[in-house]
């Protein structure tokens, strides 16, 4: 019989796509079948198609992402009388798992309604709920998740088996009769009564609670209670790093100014932390010295119930020891968080995989941390990489994330953290195995950073040797550039671009430490066109911790040693200068990040020590106010000299103006050089990448300077090292194919 075969590609498994097709086909009286297979969803139908194929794309379920709908005329036999969902076809089918998704409106209405799931903290359906965080092994079905111990009751089983139900094949389906249980624990003892009500009462009384969420424990407290916020800071030994907040939609406008874009980001099923301008109504200590607050909406029924009962805004910071990753186990929480939390709101559904909350900004759009809700989603690769070899790339040291490419798709892993931390290192190894399984990946090459002492680089070298495949070491900033090209689907043969990569630092091929670069190149190679005039990193990585070190060398270089002596009377300046002079642990670096630190230190912003990475730069950005262009930075033989910025200090300019001038001058110096590359026909577009472009002011000013040019920026993958592995993978693939 003449019919149609429709192939649907994209994120179409585990998101209710088959029941959606089933309902769509039945409503149109089509005969046929739908099934999952290794390539996605396959539909075989006979009858009048009409706009069926378009509807597959346009009306797809909320968590689906349809990349392609391919219709082919075929001869079909053995079709059933009506329309059916049939068993998966072929090996490798149904191995997909989608990202965890925030509670959907239907489930929210249900827990607030009168049905059997009223007030139930673990409600979910095909359109929402836990996924990757409960996955233990593949393929993704209940028996291989941490829901396995919970045996479905008859009512849940009926919903699970009914294609017309929104819980059809929802693996974590649960109800109060058969699902996970919530309790409040204090002093090692379960507190009697309603856990949510008791938890809310304690929060109102100013207590700090450890709350078990999707990807880990949070520490929660009343964000409006300055005393409690201070107490949390003291207990966590976290003096200044901003705390994330959780608020109901109705409470948002009171604390932050919410743009339409921000609201859309907040409501996304990924439910990330969104940075928005603070209205200054919460205690300053929630986010000291910075003008933005990071807020997320409640994203599990547990969070909704807790916030409804509490009625205010909560601090929701990750539950961890200083510098260590988030706690995920109940016993681990009791062991490690007892010093921080007065009580534990916990449950008996295990967390299989630690996932931090994702962090995004909307104006301009950028992802600062790619984690819960965004992984394990795949990204399409640019034209030219369709037949690229399978590559695994291992990323950087500080914001480790790995990336696999295969079949024209990339799987960029979640933010793991700093790899010298033992638990993070274990998570890295787990991620390596996990993602390889998820993606059925068999590496034909390994890509690493040029820095041999990144733990990820050493791991990659070992893997390449064990696998007997080539290993390609990619220069850090070339990888940043390639990541941006890849995200923007820049074709493999799209020509050269001018890449402004302003970053912390990365090892250059010349053995010095780079970090403020203008590169001209493509996926396969690059040349260094311009760079910040190098300065010594006195004490190596210690220079990152102590901004005065960077200020001292820059001031000395600008002939302002006297000013340095006055600004940093407490610092061991003599010793530091000797180190710089004699080259004792003082490598030269063109780092842009350290230049921000230097200016910040001169303006009195955490001069002696930063309490968290990026503190000085974030505060500097908040301080900057729009006051003109800033001085020109002279360029000699490719070296951009920032000395004039330090002259402003000697001239006693107001701090807000100096802070702004840094952004404006840096933007102009690099943009001017980049524009010249375009005008001379050597480059086709400008790329902005590197961690410094998380700075909204710098990003916006640089784009303004380049108005009229084609600009490629990061939007859905981090400009920082969280996106590095994607670039490494693409460079490696391009180099291999070039051979």
């Amino acid at each position, binding site marked *: 019989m003449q019919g149609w075969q429709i192939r649907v590609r994209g994120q179409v498994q585990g998101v209710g796509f088959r029941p959606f097709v089933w309902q769509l086909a039945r409503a149109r009286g089509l005969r046929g079948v739908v099934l999952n297979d290794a390539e996605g969803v396959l539909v075989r139908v006979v009858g009048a198609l009409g706009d069926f194929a378009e509807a597959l794309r346009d009306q797809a379920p909320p968590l689906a992402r349809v990349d392609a709908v391919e219709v082919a005329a075929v001869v079909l036999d053995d079709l059933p009388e009506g329309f059916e969902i049939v068993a998966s076809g072929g090996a490798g089918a149904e191995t997909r798992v989608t990202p965890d998704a925030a509670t959907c409106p239907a489930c929210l209405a249900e827990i607030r309604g009168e049905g059997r799931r009223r007030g139930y903290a673990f409600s979910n359906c095909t359109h929402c709920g836990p996924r990757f965080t409960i996955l233990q092994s593949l393929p993704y079905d209940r028996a291989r998740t941490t829901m396995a111990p919970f045996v479905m009751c008859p009512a849940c089983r009926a919903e699970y088996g009914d294609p017309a139900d929104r819980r059809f094949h929802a693996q974590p389906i649960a109800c109060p009769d058969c699902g996970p249980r919530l309790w409040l624990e204090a002093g090692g003892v379960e507190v009697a009564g309603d856990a949510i009500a008791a938890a809310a009462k304690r929060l109102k009384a100013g207590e700090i609670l450890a709350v078990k969420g999707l990807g880990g424990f949070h520490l929660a407290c009343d964000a409006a209670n300055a005393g409690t916020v201070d107490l949390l800071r003291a207990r966590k030994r976290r003096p200044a790093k901003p705390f994330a907040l959780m608020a109901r939609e109705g409470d948002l406008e009171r604390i932050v100014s919410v743009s339409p874009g921000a609201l859309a980001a907040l409501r996304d099923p990924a439910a990330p932390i969104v940075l928005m301008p603070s209205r200054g109504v919460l205690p300053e200590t929630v986010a000291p010295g910075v003008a933005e607050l990071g807020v997320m909406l409640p994203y599990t029924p547990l969070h909704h119930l807790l916030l409804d009962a509490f009625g205010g805004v909560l601090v929701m910071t990750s539950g961890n020891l200083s510098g260590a990753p988030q706690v995920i186990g109940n016993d681990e929480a009791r062991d490690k968080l007892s010093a921080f939390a007065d009580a534990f709101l916990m449950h008996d559904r295990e967390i299989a995989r630690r996932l931090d909350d994702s962090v995004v900004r909307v104006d301009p759009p950028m992802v600062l941390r790619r984690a819960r809700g965004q992984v394990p989603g795949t990204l399409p690769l640019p034209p030219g990489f369709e037949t690229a070899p399978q590559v695994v790339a291992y990323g950087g040291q500080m914001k480790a994330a790995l990336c696999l490419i295969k079949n024209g798709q990339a799987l960029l892993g979640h933010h793991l953290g700093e790899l010298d931390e*033992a638990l993070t290192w274990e998570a890295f190894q787990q991620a390596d195995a996990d993602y390889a399984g998820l993606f059925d990946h068999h590496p034909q090459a390994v890509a690493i950073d040029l820095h041999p002492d990144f733990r990820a680089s050493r791991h990659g070298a070992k893997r390449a040797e064990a696998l007997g495949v080539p290993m390609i070491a990619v220069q850090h900033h070339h990888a940043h550039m390639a990541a941006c090209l890849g995200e923007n689907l820049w074709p493999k043969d799209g020509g050269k671009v001018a890449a402004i990569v302003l970053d912390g630092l990365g090892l250059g091929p010349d053995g010095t430490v780079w970090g403020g670069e203008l590169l001209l190149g493509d996926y396969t190679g690059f040349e260094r066109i311009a760079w910040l005039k190098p300065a010594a990193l006195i004490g190596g990585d210690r220079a990152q911790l102590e901004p005065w070190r960077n200020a001292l060398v820059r001031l000395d270089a600008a002939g302002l040693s006297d000013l340095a002596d006055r600004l940093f009377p407490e610092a061991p300046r003599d010793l530091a200068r000797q180190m710089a002079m004699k080259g004792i642990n003082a490598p030269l670096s063109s780092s842009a990040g350290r230049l921000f630190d230097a200016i910040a230190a001169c303006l009195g912003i955490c001069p002696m020590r930063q309490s968290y990475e990026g503190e000085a730069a974030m505060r500097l950005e908040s301080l900057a106010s729009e006051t003109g262009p800033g001085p020109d930075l002279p360029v000699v033989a490719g070296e951009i000299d920032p000395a004039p910025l330090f002259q402003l200090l000697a001239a006693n300019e107001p701090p807000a103006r100096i802070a702004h001038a840094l952004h404006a001058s840096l933007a102009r110096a690099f943009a001017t050089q980049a524009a010249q590359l375009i005008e001379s026909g050597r480059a086709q577009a400008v790329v902005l990448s590197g961690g410094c472009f998380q700075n909204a002011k710098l990003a916006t000013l640089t784009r303004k300077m380049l108005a009229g040019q084609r600009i490629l920026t990061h939007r859905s993958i981090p400009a920082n090292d969280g996106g590095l592995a994607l670039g490494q993978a693409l460079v490696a693939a391009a180099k291999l194919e070039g051979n």
Partner: protein
Amino acid sequence: MALRDERVTLAHGGGGKAMRDLIEEVFTAVFQPPGMEDQARLTEAALAEPGARLAFTTDSYVVTPIEFPGGDIGKIAVCGTVNDLAVGGARPLWLSAAFIIEEGTEIALLRRIVATMAREAEAAGVRIVTGDTKVVGRGACDGVFVTTAGVGVIPPGREMAAGLVQPGDVAIVNGVLGDHGATILATRGDLALSSDIESDCAALGHLMAGVMAAAPGIRAARDLTRGGLASALNEIAQAAGCGIVIDETALPLRAEVVGLCEILGLDPLYLANEGRLVTFVPEAEAAAALAAMRARPEGAGACVIGRAVADHAGQVRMRTAFGGARIVDMLVGEQLPRIC
């Protein structure tokens, strides 16, 4: 007879009278090796004991500056080789000493070095029994290089090796870490330091003898030299196929060394030592081993720093003051900054 010259010239290496004068007056007069020929002929009853084994090691010593607070190159050359023998379970007996001397080196400096070596050898209970000198042109070496080889005896039945360390064994060090490395850095860089840190350079043969007597089940010991405690522990973890956990709060560190490391951006775990060792003993013998160390001046600061564990085989971790766990790696080349 007195050498007229104040500095070494190429003639001192020429094989003639100048050379003989130098060797006889500066070296053999002090070391007094047995016999006057070029090789030592030795008898030792211990070697005849059934099951006894000969231990034999050699090391070259290069240090800038040649003299530093707490010692000089000669002290390191004796102590280093004695310690190499001692941590292998041997009783050190004899040393050879070979010198490469740069033209222009002060004779007085050579005399000081030789005096130190003789003194340290005597204190360590070893004899310098043979040696050699070579003089090279300016720039062909940096002052004086010294090579010592050492011979010792391992008594019957003693088995010590990193591979024998087992989960549960206790790790003990004999004193504060990093003093030597910090001293050298400060002196070499001519850094204006107001500190009285001195090199920890010391011979540990007697200390090891005490520990081995007190803790006969001792598994292994390693002297901490280049690469510091971190490198020694990594070698042991890898050879033993088990993990090692150390406690940040238990590490013996001098405040001055910590302060200097903070300024220099260095990790004291990687600083060189010349008179420190780490030993692994069964838990039941840990207290006795510790007491034996503390009974000697070079072990006065001994303490337990951690233990071997079954987890994370081959890897060393440090429990931090805040309760986290950090991986402590082997030092690979020079430490380039990594924080992006």
